[in-house]
């Protein structure tokens, strides 16, 4: 764990300098450990790919006192079984909602069916949540379909769009501008103000996309 100042009332802990599962697991463990410690005066904890950002009440800690406390109390030495919990996202991969499927097929020289298979056969990890409420960065997408972001971002990517940018994949929880390649759409609510958990995602969780037909998508409340 490397501690650095982030701002006058925040710090950041680094667990490595690359994107991989090993480092992500450390982040997840440290995050769980922090939640368990439930320290007074900690305001935000933002886990990401290889770091945890923490903002704090400076009337409770100064930078050095908090760094000291965390160095001595964050525990990485335990097993987690959270990753056995798989969240399945039913996805309709039709070209009417998978707005970039045809383009991707040209770029990758794969059939649309192959693209769907490659995308839905893999188990993904949640590496980070951000950008928009409930927007989870999932990795890693099969190299064969890891296409870069669009040169010109779309003004609106429809809510529920399942998308790819290089080796990352994500679902847009609401309408938003964005430059990711859209392969399908889900009817699942990914950020719900009325639910206690708000978002079904957490860092370290496993995600699977399950292809469904148009009829089922519409039955689930999906919107074309």
């Amino acid at each position, binding site marked *: 764990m490397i501690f650095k*100042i982030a701002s*006058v*009332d*925040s710090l950041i802990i680094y667990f490595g300098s690359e994107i991989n599962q090993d480092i992500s697991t450390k982040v997840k463990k440290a995050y769980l450990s922090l939640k368990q410690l439930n320290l007074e005066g900690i305001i935000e904890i933002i886990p990401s*790919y290889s770091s945890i950002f923490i903002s704090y009440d400076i009337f409770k800690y100064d*930078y050095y006192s908090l760094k000291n406390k965390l160095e001595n109390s964050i525990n990485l030495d335990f097993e987690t079984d959270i990753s056995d919990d798989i969240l399945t996202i039913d996805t309709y991969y039709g070209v009417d909602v998978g707005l970039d499927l045809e383009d991707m097929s040209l770029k990758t020289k794969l059939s649309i069916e192959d693209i769907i298979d490659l995308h839905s056969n893999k188990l993904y990890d949640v590496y980070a949540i*951000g*950008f*928009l409420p409930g927007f989870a960065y999932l990795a890693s997408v099969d190299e064969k379909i890891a296409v870069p972001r669009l040169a010109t971002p779309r003004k609106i990517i429809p809510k529920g769009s399942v998308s790819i940018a290089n080796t990352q994949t994500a679902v847009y929880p609401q309408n938003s501008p964005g430059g990711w390649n859209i392969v399908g759409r889900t009817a699942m609510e990914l*950020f719900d103000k009325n639910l206690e958990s708000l978002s079904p995602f957490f860092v370290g969780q496993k995600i699977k996309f399950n292809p469904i037909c148009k009829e089922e998508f519409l039955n689930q409340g999906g919107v074309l």
Partner: protein
Amino acid sequence: MSLEVINTPILATIQDKGRFSYSYIGVTNSGVMDEYAYLHANKMLRNPLDSNIIEISFSNVIFKVNKSTQIAITGAICEIFINEVPKKSWQTYNVKNGDIIKIGKILEGSRVYLSVSGGFDIKKDFGSNSTTIKEKLGGLNGDKLNKGDILFFKECEKTFNVRLKSEYIPKYEENLELRVLLSYQEEFFSKDEIEKFFSNTYTVTNDFNRMGCKLRGEPIKCEIDGIISEGISFGAIQIPSDGQPIILLKDRQTIGGYPKIGSVLSIDCFKLSQVKPNTKINFIPISIQEAQKKLKLFYSSFM
């Protein structure tokens, strides 16, 4: 018992101290851009210091009062009329049923704050009334104030008015010094680049909103193009590949992948949020000890 929005403001939003502890699922902190003006408005009304308030970012907003209350107006120096009679900022006023409050032209500074005694009765989203339009959270239905919106409050009796002593009323100048704590990826900026950053003058561009403030000036080079996305603090200074600094403010993204040279001291970001495009900015370094002392002093003065 309400304040009604009579015209269509370009950008006026309900804000409070902000929305905390939800950054982990991507919900930004939001909150008032200028805490100095906000805290004074609430203090003058003897409100709880985290009461909600209206943040007005562009000239010309008109309200109709439907019941007696006391209001405070702080922040940018602007034309204020109550029933066509000109009034001054950084003061409280008793208003009653039928009164028309008009915030006219913004003259110095860029954000006006208007609060009512006891704050507005609005349902909170995740513990806060702060409006973040892109997240559709806070305010009335997650949006800015619109014509016809009605903001409820509890009636309050006419009481003595107060005015902030003039020495505490900020002057919004054309030059601003921002104290910077080197942090985050500072090691990826060479000594020369850091020297350049602190010795040059930067200009505030039109790319300036509640999310952040883009500057223009001598480009700063970072040895790396991007970083693995990580949590972003209030005041963080991103250096994208064009070398032009972006200071991230209240509606910033929770995580991001641009290298950061450091963070502007939060209380200086409050001053920044009141400047206009073309303002000249200079950065000066500050240590963590000194920065934390200044921040404590700032908040202690309101307690």
